[in-house]
């Protein structure tokens, strides 16, 4: 009898310590693009995220990283695998809005938290919003709305606008048109991944536009800007930060110099968190951080701040801790709107050359404390 109760006590103890070891642990599944054309973006998000976890030195955070190859079907398979067999608590990492639309609704419906370091499609901000979905970067429309605001300030009256035909591209043009007050000289959707813009440029030339707005992230933007510079079209260009980011500016070269673009982050935002981030990123990876790296870094710090306050197994408390967003964002002030998307300042940047390196500097603020228009549609 004595032995039996001893064994039972030991077992109880073991269970107790096992439970204790689980306490406070968070397993994160990161699905992002690490190969193919859009790899630079995913790699930056991953590196920013991992840098924050390394700097925090928190042993309770475990990160599993997988490559979605920018394919929605692969992203869905990876999400299933991470939820079913890896038993992750939190998912993050997706760059592209079409992939986010394929993964996020199913993941949050299964009670997982999803922290978006990039994609913020309007469908997930409005009617499709979910208590467990948080976007740490922006709602897709935001930077484009800021570009529209800049166009008004700069006195553009007839803009030619173009974007790829996918959810974020549609959000981009909608966002620009929402704030921009002038007329449109033309409106075009291009193919996602398109590299040759000769046909579009010919239409810009044939129109009576006084300016061009475009949203073409990654390699698409490189192609467009180089071809734009070569076409002899001499109109001012404005766009969101995605086509003028640290990762691609060197490949664009002189063609981007002087172009105005809108961003919620830049390396010269003056606060301690940003200075520490820029310095640590350069020391660890040997390159300047990009917008995407800053978003990955903020996502990890948001998660770490929630982990310090609540246990992930208590979903309500953990959600409240995420909503509070008490972390030192590299953007300075940061808070969530009711639909879990950021309320933040959006700046106008100009592409400059520092020595041999092309980079951006902030020249003004396009929109202050900017939220998003989908808040009212979201029933949270």
């Amino acid at each position, binding site marked *: 009898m004595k032995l039996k109760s001893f064994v039972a006590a030991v077992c109880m103890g073991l269970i107790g310590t096992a439970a204790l070891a689980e306490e406070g642990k968070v397993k994160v599944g990161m699905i992002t693009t*690490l*190969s*193919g*054309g859009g*790899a*630079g973006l995913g*790699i930056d998000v991953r590196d920013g995220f991992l840098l924050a976890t390394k700097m925090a030195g928190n042993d309770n955070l475990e990160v599993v990283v997988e490559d979605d190859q920018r394919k929605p079907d692969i992203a869905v398979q990876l999400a299933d695998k991470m939820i079913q067999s890896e038993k992750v608590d939190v998912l993050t990492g997706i760059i592209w809005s079409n992939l986010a639309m394929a993964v996020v609704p199913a993941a949050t419906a299964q009670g997982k938290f999803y922290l978006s370091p990039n994609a913020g499609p309007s469908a997930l901000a409005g009617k499709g919003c979910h208590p467990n979905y948080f976007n740490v970067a922006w709602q897709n429309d935001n930077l484009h709305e800021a570009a529209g605001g800049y166009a008004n300030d700069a006195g553009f009256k007839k803009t030619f606008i173009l974007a790829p*035909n996918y959810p974020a591209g*549609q959000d981009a043009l909608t966002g620009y048109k929402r704030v921009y007050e002038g007329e449109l000289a033309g*409106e*075009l*959707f*291009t*193919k996602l*991944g398109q*590299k*040759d813009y*000769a*046909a579009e440029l*010919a*239409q810009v*030339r*044939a129109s009576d536009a006084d300016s061009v707005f475009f949203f073409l992230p990654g*390699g698409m933007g*490189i*192609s467009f800007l*180089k*071809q734009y510079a*070569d*076409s*002899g079209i001499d109109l001012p260009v404005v766009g969101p930060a995605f086509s003028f980011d640290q*990762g*691609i500016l*060197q*490949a*664009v*070269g002189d063609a981007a110099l002087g172009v105005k673009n809108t961003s919620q982050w830049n390396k010269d935002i003056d606060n301690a968190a940003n200075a520490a981030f820029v310095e640590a990123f350069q020391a660890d990876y040997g390159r300047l951080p990009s917008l995407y790296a800053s978003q990955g870094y903020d996502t990890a710090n948001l998660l770490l701040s929630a982990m310090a306050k609540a246990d992930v197994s208590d979903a309500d408390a953990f959600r409240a801790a995420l909503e509070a967003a008490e972390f030192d964002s590299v953007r300075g002030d940061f808070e969530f709107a009711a639909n879990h998307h950021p309320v933040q300042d959006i700046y106008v940047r100009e592409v400059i050359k520092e020595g041999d390196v092309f980079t951006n500097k902030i020249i003004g603020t396009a929109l202050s404390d900017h939220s998003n228009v989908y808040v009212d549609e979201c029933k949270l």
Partner: protein
Amino acid sequence: MTFILLIEQVLNGLQFGVMLFLMAAGLTLVFGVMGLINLAHGSLYMVGAFAAAAVAGATGSFLLALAAALAAAAAAGALMELLVIRRLYNRDHLDQVLATFALILIFSEGTRWLFGSFPLYLDIPDALSGPVTLPGGIAYPAYRLAIIAIGLVIAAGLFWLIARTRLGIRIRAGESDREMIAALGVDISKLYTIVFALGAALAGLAGALVGAIQSVQVGMGEPVLILAFVVIVIGGIGSIKGALIGAILVGLTDTLGGIALPAVLRLVTDNATATSTGAALSSMLIYILMAGVLIWRPQGLFGAQA
């Protein structure tokens, strides 16, 4: 749509077409002569672009960069043939597809390992930068005109090579009866390596030329590869003439369709719907063209009767 815009778009379609031709020519030769489906042809395009970007970055000379692209892609192609492809000639197409798909992954990750994931910088030479004014007041980028010229010169050179030289005779003979020319004492394996390297060099040249106006990055070859396959299916497998006509047809259809369809749709529906449906429909146009050709002439426009 004004007349000038139309001419400019036709030039754009031509330029896209001759680029596709450079890709498709190698693919169709390899398929015609060796009966091999080479999915890794897009990787050779990427090798050419990266070699050009690396050499242009080191020396600043665009001509040297083009030479490097030709040499690197030809060398990669010859090496690929000697090490891997050679073992696949007698296998069925499924094995070839599997092995060459593996080569795509190896080339992509190898390039990423060597050059990193971020796009490389390759710019057009100063002499060809900016637009030139054509008769009729059309401003058109000089570099794109140069691409059209280079493509047409190479097409002429290939016709001459196939029709007038001993190598061309052997290639044509290899296409129609490979056992027979082996029996006649032609070193068939050497011929195969040469044809493969020639196709690779053309793909590398296309990669370098296009890399200067687009972006040089890992995975740049695969979208072009798909179009090149469409071209050779339309043109007829193994036919250089078919590849040229098919490429220009695809180039013009894609470019002009992308302009015309939204404009036509705008007549019947509102602007936003026309823009997005037009964009979606125009990206299907070349596949519809391919399906049409396959129904009308299953062997392709210039293919031999099966």
